[in-house]
Each structure stands twice: as structure tokens, then as C-alpha cells.
């Protein structure tokens, strides 16, 4: 089977270079090129590609915005000259990230990964506070800045991620996995059920039985701090 592939870049020369690099791979069939997001979206609708090579800095658009506009599922490979913040994903093969000028060996590896087992465990690399993470939500995917996460609630094998804007995502990840990846400096587990972003704390209330409740900036409900984690929370503020 050949992978239907789309190249998105606002520079003709860059697209040409990508095309030439991809010509080496028999499993890649280029079905179209686009130079902005609206062209990309209609190409995606029409061709239903398996792979999209996407430049992040389009002349007046941002490649990140593509995923918010499409329901299609495809493997995304970012191609960029330089980016201050990395993009990380929970799954190794969820997306890839190539730097221009693209190293052909690195490209070969990225294409190899596409065929890999989707169940494969994530390699352990902690997120940074400024990172963007790539999340797969069943049939669609989103980008989320780590610093935009307000708190995360456990929900069985799933977790509910609440953003500062009040959005909620249901993600097939346990709270334990989140705890391992989120930066310790900014995120703290306060309960078996909850991880919070310390920057988002509005106030900490002491209840009559000497337990704590945390109120976050963008949410009205308070969150319980279990006794086990209270010490840690206190130590962050003293």
C-alpha cells in the first residue's frame, strides 16, 4: 500500500525540495501540494491523505491551527526551520518533527515510524511548561500548550483535561502517566483523582477538619486536597 501524502509549505522551493526528498521512498505517493491552510483543508477533504507534511510558519497562518479545522485523521509530520518550543506527543508515532533543511536519514526514520505499531508505549520524555503537546482524541487530534492546562481529573482509564479556557478533553491516559510526564515544578498531584497546575491556584481554603480545598482561577468548583498530598502542596508555598 502506498501512503497518500500532501505537502504544505508557503515557499515553492521548499515544496520542491520536499518532493525531491520524498521521491526516494516508494511507499510515498504525493497527491497534492498546498501553500496555505484553506488549500490544505480542501485537499484533505478530497484526497483523504495518510500523511501531511506541514510547515509550521506559513506566511500569515500557523500550521498548528490545521488540526482545529479538520476531523480527518492522518499522520502529521511537521517541517520547520526552527522552533523555539518543541512539540511532544504521548505516542511515539503520533507525529513527527523535521527540521529544515531536512536530513534524508531523519526523513527515512519518520516514514518508517508511520508503519509502526500504534499501541507502542510512549518514550519517556517529560514535557516542558512551554511545550505544545499533541493529543489524540479518538478520531481527532488537538494541540495543547502544557501551560494552558488548568487541571486534570482521573476518570477510570481515561483522564479529563481541563484547559484554562474551560475546555475539556477526554483522553485515554491515566493520571499516573500524566504525572510522569508533566513538569514537577508547575504541576502537582493533590488527590488520587486530581493533578493541578500550580500557576492556576486562586486560593487555598482550610476546612474545619484541617483538610484543604483548592480553588482554581477559572473554575468555580473547589478541588479537595487529600492529606497525603497536603504536605507537598504546603512545601510548594513556603
Amino acid at each position: 500500500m502506498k501512503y497518500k501524502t500532501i505537502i504544505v509549505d508557503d515557499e515553492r522551493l521548499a515544496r520542491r525540495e520536499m518532493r525531491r526528498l520524498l521521491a526516494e521512498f516508494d511507499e510515498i505517493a504525493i497527491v497534492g501540494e498546498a501553500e496555505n491552510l484553506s488549500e490544505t483543508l480542501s485537499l484533505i477533504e478530497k484526497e483523504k491523505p495518510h500523511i501531511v507534511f506541514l510547515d509550521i510558519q506559513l506566511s500569515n497562518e500557523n500550521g498548528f491551527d490545521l488540526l482545529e479545522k479538520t476531523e480527518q485523521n492522518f499522520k502529521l509530520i511537521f517541517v520547520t526551520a526552527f522552533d523555539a518550543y518543541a512539540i511532544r506527543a504521548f505516542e511515539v508515532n503520533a507525529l513527527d518533527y523535521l527540521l529544515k533543511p531536512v536530513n534524508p536519514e531523519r526523513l527515512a526514520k519518520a516514514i518508517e515510524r508511520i508503519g509502526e505499531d500504534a499501541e507502542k508505549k510512549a518514550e519517556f520524555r517529560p514535557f516542558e511548561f512551554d511545550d505544545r503537546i499533541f493529543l489524540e482524541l479518538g478520531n481527532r487530534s488537538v494541540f495543547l500548550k502544557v501551560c494552558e492546562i488548568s487541571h486534570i481529573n482521573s476518570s477510570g482509564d481515561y483522564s479529563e483535561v481541563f484547559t484554562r479556557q474551560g475546555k475539556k478533553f477526554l483522553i485515554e491516559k491515566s493520571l499516573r502517566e500524566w504525572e510522569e510526564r508533566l513538569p514537577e515544578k508547575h504541576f502537582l498531584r493533590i488527590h488520587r483523582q486530581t493533578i493541578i497546575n500550580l500557576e492556576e491556584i486562586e486560593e487555598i481554603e482550610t476546612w474545619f477538619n484541617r483538610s484543604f480545598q483548592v480553588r482554581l482561577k477559572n473554575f468555580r468548583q473547589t478541588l479537595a486536597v487529600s492529606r497525603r498530598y497536603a504536605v507537598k502542596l504546603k512545601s510548594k508555598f513556603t
Partner: protein
Amino acid sequence: MSKIDFNKIYSSFWFLQIGGWLIYTVMIYITFLTVTNNFLSLFYIKTFRAVVGFLLTLILWRIYRRMVNRLSLSSTVLIVLGLSMLFGIFWALIEEGYVWAISKEYNFYANLPKIPKVALDYAMTVTAWSAVYFGIKYWQKWQTEQQNALESAALANKAQLEVLRYQLNPHFLFNALNSIRASVDEDSNRAKEMITQLSEFLRYSLLGESEKKIPLREELEAVRNYLAIEKIRFEEKLEIEFDVEKSAEDFKVPCFLLNPLVENAIKHGLQTSAKPLKIKISARVSGRELFLEVCNSGRLENLHNSNGTKIGLKNVRQRLEKLFGDGGKFELKQDGDFVKARVEILRQKN
């Protein structure tokens, strides 16, 4: 041959200690010459007094050396007063003993009531010595601090200027390399030309000195190289126009002044302008003033959401201020269909 540092000698402890006590000795000789005619005993007693003072203050020196910069002002003052009192009494008693030993007509009981007064007198002298000692110490400390502050400010300035200049945009660099890679097969002559242009530009931005002022011609050359590469990247989406007066080319400008403005013009122009983006660069001289303009066909409104640009423009402003004071001006405004970045520099007399 090494040069002798007189400043260091004059401010050294031993120089001041010996010199100070010699002056003290001479002064007490003179004061007492008028009130006595027993010159020999005057000489013995007053010399003894000065020697004791000299030795006692050496002991004080050992103590004070440990106190300097460690204790607060109030505890220093208290200790100094206490020690002065103690040393004053000690000094007076030693002298009394000496006089008793060498003088035959010494009458202990007649002298006894005078001792507290003498002790207080000597205590004052010790206090004065202490005041001079600490005064010099604090003055030296203050001087070194001043020196350090000046040095660190100079260093900070230099470092900042370096940083500003090294803001060689990695986006630009890697995109340029990517365009070159793409051109190698498509048009190898163009690829070669791009390599030359990129090399020239890198040489200019990496080897130029930020404090140095260079003729505008050289700065414009770097900008031309930069824009030539961007033109190949953006092709028909970018139009460039230069309008430079001949007389402006020799005007001295700071290295790398124009480039951040051109970079911004492209970055923001691409986001806000209709296609193609037009970039106009002009330079003219009027009297002693140079007027530089970098215009792009974009809009200024969306500027506030870009932090990088703000920093870039702030840097331009800061550098102008540092290098020209009131003689350098910078403004950014919407002028019709163009965003205009304008720099004015007053030629300096030298």
C-alpha cells in the same frame, strides 16, 4: 622595569602609620617647647609618649583589621569608643610609670589627680586615630565599589550590544540553507550565488563590531544580500525597492542597525500585506542629518501580539540612545498603505 605605584604606597598602612606618628611627635615637641626649659627630659618623655602611641595603635590595628566590613556602624562606634578609653588609660599609666622611673623628683601623690585628665586626653588621640583608620577603610571600600559598579555597567552594556547583534535569526538562516539545497538541482548557478550572498551576510553579522560605526554603504550591502536570499525564497510574493542618495552612502551608522528593521518589515509584512509584499528602503541626507526609512506594505495594527518584534524595536531604540543620545531618533508608524520605520541620526562632530 616595573613602575612603582605611588598611589598604593601613599595609601598603605605603614606609610600612613609611620608618617602620622612622626608628625605627631614633631607637633608635641613644638607645643611643649614653649612651656618648659628642660629640653632633654622633654625629649625623652615626649618621644616615649609617641612610641607608646605608635605601638598601642599597632595593637589596635590588629583588632580593627578583623572588624572592618564585618560589624555594623553602631557596634563599630561602640567598640572604638570603649577601646579608645581603655587604651587611653593604659597609655597614661605606662607614661606615668616611665616618668617615675627616670625622674628623681617625681611625686606620685601630686601627679595622681592629673592622671584621669591625661588618660582622657590620650583616649581622644586614640579615637582620632581610629576615626582616621576607619575613614580610610570605608573610603577605599567605597572607591572599589564605585569602580566595580562602573566596570559591571560597562560590561553589561557590551554584552547587551553583543546579544542584540547576534540575534541572527535562526529562521532566516535555516530557511536560506533549505532554499539553497532546493536550488542545487534546479539551478546550480543560483545556488552558488546564494551561497556567496549568505556567506557575505554571515561574515558581516558575525564579524562586525557592534560598537563600531561603519559607512551606510556597507550596512546596505549586507541588507541587499539578506534581501536577495529572501527574494529567492519568496519569489514573486516579495518586491524590493532601494532609493539611496549618493551622499548618504558615506554617512557613519552603527553596524547592524538596518537589518532588524528589514527583518521585521518582511515578517510582519508577510502577515498583514496583500500579495505581493512591497519593501522600500530609502536613505537621504539633509544638513547634518541622515534619514533612513524601511517601509512595508503591511498594516501596523496587529503588531501588539508579537513579542519578538517589540523586543527587536526596543533594541533599535536602545542602541540609538546609547550611541547617539539625543542625536538618534526612531519611530514606527502607519503611513498610508505602508508601515514606515524611520531612523534619524545626527552626524557627530569629532
